[in-house]
Structure formats: C-alpha cells, structure tokens
C-alpha cells in the first residue's frame, strides 16, 4: 500500500470539506463549546460538590470527548464516502492506478484527522479550564493524569476509528449523505451508555482497569469492523451493488 496515494485522496477531501461550512462549524464549534460550558457550569453550580464527588464527575466529563469524537467523524465520513457515491465520482477514482485499500485509507484519514485534532484541542482546553475551576476545592490540579491520557490518547482514536469504519459500512448501504449521517450517528449510542453509567456512578471512569477493558473491547470491535468495511469497500461491490 502506498501512503502517498491515500494522502492525495485525503488532501483532496480536506480541500472539499473546507468548503462545507456546516461541517467546519460543527467540528470546530462543538468541542470548544463543551470545553468552555462544562467548566463554567461546574464553576457556577458545582460549588456544593465535595472533592470525592468531583473526582467521579471529572473523568466522566472527560469521557464526553470520546462521544464527541465518534459523533464528529460521522458527517465527514458520510460526506467523503456517501458524497462520492451521490456525485458518482467513485468510478473515475476507481479507474486510477490506486488500490481499494489506498482509497479507503485516504477516506479514513480525511474522516479521522479533523475530528481528532478538534477534539484534542477541545479536550486540552477543557482540562485546563476544569483545573482552574476545581483546584480551589480539590487542592490540586486534577488533569492531566494517566487515566485522562488513556481516554484522550487511546479511547478517543479507537472510538473515532470505529465510527469511521461504521460509516463506511453504512455509506455502502444508503443512497444519500443525510441517511448515511443518520445511521452513522448511531455509533455514539454505546459511548453515551458508558458516559451515563459513569455519571450515575455505575462505572468508575476514573479507574484504569475499567478504561483498559473499554479500550480492549474497542480494539476487538475495530478489528471486526476492519474486515467488514474493507469487504464493503471493494470496487466490484461499489460499481455493481452499492445502491
């Protein structure tokens, strides 16, 4: 596989995505809003929370960025794959000396990097503001710690990868970008479940073992989805069976 071919495709997608104002605003605005709003809310109404309650809430809030990452990759992945299908630009692309895997990787990079960068930036700001907000009550800066590193540097990329692959599979079955986005959006459901469980103190998202189990489950799902998505993204399937 030639990474250069994939990068050419991804660079083209970055260029077209920049012209999709709705997607740009979504990817930039949401992580920043969350980074400012949650610390503001905690600072304003969370004064009554004890340090013990805060150390449960903070990692759960950080996990919210995993949901965001998964959610934000959906419109991009749908646009780059279902969008090409709608514009019927896949056939000339497939006629170039590029392999299916190189095209799929290019599409993956285009759907993976922008939300990753936006969420990393947003989560860094979130941790900074949250530290400033909670230091008075905790007596120390909560972020960053090893668990937040696991969430941001391991769970987030794995969740993004899962979302991108799910979107490849969904895009092969839908006829328009919006339907792809709606179906692809379902990938956030399991992460919301984990987040809610964290907020309800049913699962401790500040516990390294729990995070490692979630990471392990995501690795398994990602490997399984890799086989399904690469099978779905096969040029003969695309030209003869994609609706």
């Amino acid at each position: 596989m030639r990474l250069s071919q994939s990068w050419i495709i991804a660079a083209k997608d970055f260029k077209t995505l920049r012209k999709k104002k709705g997607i740009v605003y979504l990817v930039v605005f949401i992580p920043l809003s969350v980074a400012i709003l949650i610390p503001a809310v905690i600072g304003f109404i969370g004064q009554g929370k004890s340090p013990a309650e805060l150390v449960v809430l903070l990692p759960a809030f950080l996990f919210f960025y995993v949901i965001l990452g998964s959610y934000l990759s959906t419109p991009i992945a749908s646009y780059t794959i279902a969008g090409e299908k709608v514009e019927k630009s896949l056939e000339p692309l497939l006629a170039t000396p590029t392999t299916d895997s190189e095209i799929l990787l290019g599409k993956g990079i285009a759907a993976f990097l922008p939300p990753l960068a936006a969420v990393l930036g947003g989560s860094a700001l979130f941790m900074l503001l949250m530290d400033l907000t909670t230091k008075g009550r905790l007596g120390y800066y909560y972020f960053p710690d090893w668990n937040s590193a696991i969430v941001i540097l391991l769970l987030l990329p794995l969740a993004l990868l899962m979302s991108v692959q799910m979107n490849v599979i969904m895009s092969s079955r839908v006829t328009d970008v919006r339907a792809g986005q709606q179906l692809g959006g379902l990938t956030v459901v399991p992460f919301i479940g984990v987040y809610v469980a964290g907020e309800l103190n049913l699962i401790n998202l500040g516990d390294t073992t729990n995070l490692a189990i979630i990471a392990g489950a995501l690795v398994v799902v990602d490997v399984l989805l890799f086989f399904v998505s690469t099978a779905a993204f096969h040029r003969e399937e695309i030209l003869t069976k994609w609706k």
Partner: protein
Amino acid sequence: MIETKGLTKRFGDLTAVDNLTLKVNAGEVFGFLGPNGAGKTTTVRMLCCLISKTSGEARIGDYDTGRSEDALKIRKLIGLVPDNVGLYDDLSAYDNLDFYGKLYGCTEAQRKENIQRFLTMLGLWEKRDAMAGTFSKGMKQKLAIARALIHEPELLFMDEPTANLDPESAKTVRDFILELKKEKRTIFLNTHNLDEAQRICDRIGILSTRLIATGTPQELEKALSSGGGTRRTVVLLQEQATDAILAGVRQLPAVGSVTTEGNKLEVALSDPDKQNAAVIEAIVKAGGHIQSVTIVSASLEDVYLKLVREGGGS
C-alpha cells in the same frame, strides 16, 4: 492494444456480456455500438479492471486484466470517460484535473502543462478557477475528457461521451475526438449514435450481449447489401405509380420487394447494377415516365437495426 477471447460476464443468472472475442489495434478508433443493456459499459469496466470477468481472457497491451498485479499497470495505461462524468463539484476545474494528475503520478510540471493544454484545447482554460459544479453539462463532459487525458494515456475509453449533450457541445466533443485521432491515440468509443460512429470510427463492433459484427462502416454496409434484399433502386416517376407499373415491376424475377409512396418507387434488388435495365424497361412498357433512377445502399443504421434485431432474437 485490446484483445479479448471469449470474454464473459454474468451477474447471477443474467449474462451481461457473452463470449466476446475482439481485437482493437493501436492507434485505432473503435466504436462499440449497441442498444441500452447490450453490455457496452460492462465490457469497458472489465477492460479497465473495474470489475472482474466471469470467464475468458482480456489483454490491454502486454497486460492481462485477470491478473491483479497487472491491474494497476493497466489503469495507468488507460484513461476513462465514464457515462456519468463524476466530477468534484466543490473543486475548481483546475483542481479536479490536478488531483487526478497526482493520482496518476504526474510531476507538477507535467500536470501544469497538460492541464493548460487540454483545458485550452477544450475551450475551458478561462474557466479553470470556476467550480466544476457551476459548469453546464457540455462543459462538465469536456472537463471529464480532459481528466481522462491528464496522464497522456495510450488508450482512452469513452462511454457515451456525447449522450445528453446539445448539438453544439456534442460537435465540440466529436471534433476533439477527431483531434485525438490525429494524435494516433487508441480510442474505444461506446455509443449508440450511429452517425457519430460512422464519422469518427475506423472500425465498429455491434454488441447485443454477444458481438454480432465487426468491421469498418463500409464493410458492414457492404456485408448487409450483399446479404440480399437491402440494396434498393429508387425510381422517381413523373406521375403516381399505377397498378400496371407495380405489376410490371413485381413480375420481374430479380425483384425482392416493391414499395411506393406517391411518385416514388423503391425496388429491392440483389444486384441493381445488372438488374436496373429490366426494371426501367418494365416501367416504360407499363406506360410510366421516369424522372430519375438512384441506387441506394444499406446505411449503417440499416445494418445496425437488422443485426441488433436478429441478435436480440437469438
């Protein structure tokens, strides 16, 4: 340049292309004629290594379309203008071509030179910075042709390049294909425009799932004419054709059929050059006065319709 032997493609129970054996020489413009659903696009997709064959062989140059290690080499050798132009509407004309130039491995200098050259040839250079989405159908078609040529392919596949274009745009595209023909590029042209095929193509293949006939337009017309009954003598009379005239002509043994419309009489003959004298004599004997006599050969349209009907029925 292209050689197929028994090339077949089935989708489940449906046979899209059946036992296609074909040879297209380098530098030749080969027209692939056939009705909708005849298998033209499927053939092009197999030859471009976009879909696999069910059986048979297909070679492009020295490469085998069935070998996965040859597929990339074949795709580098060819350019494809698909039936749907499939441009990136949110990219400029220049950026559309530049993207494909990069995928084909062209250097920046090659890309710049070829983009300017082909956009200028197709009258789009002034529009190079406009988004492809703002282009008319004809302009998009021209841009798709430039895209297929960006890496200077030896072999160009064009799938219905003038379909759905207004006459002026269609003429521009046809003229451009004739320019490419002068450059001795091999062109495989899918079309159901008979006039286009006759004007542009060196040879024509008629497909209706199976390959029904191949040859130059002249050879195909001649083959049908010598098949009997379709070479006609058209006689213009000074008056309406009477029953006596019709009876006089019909009694001649060489006459296949006689049709009449006003003062025009059409007589099907196997060899009009030899048999016209007898027809003229019969008309004059029946009291007719002749204005003119013309021999009409079978047109490519006659050939196409006859072969497709026969091929479709078999």
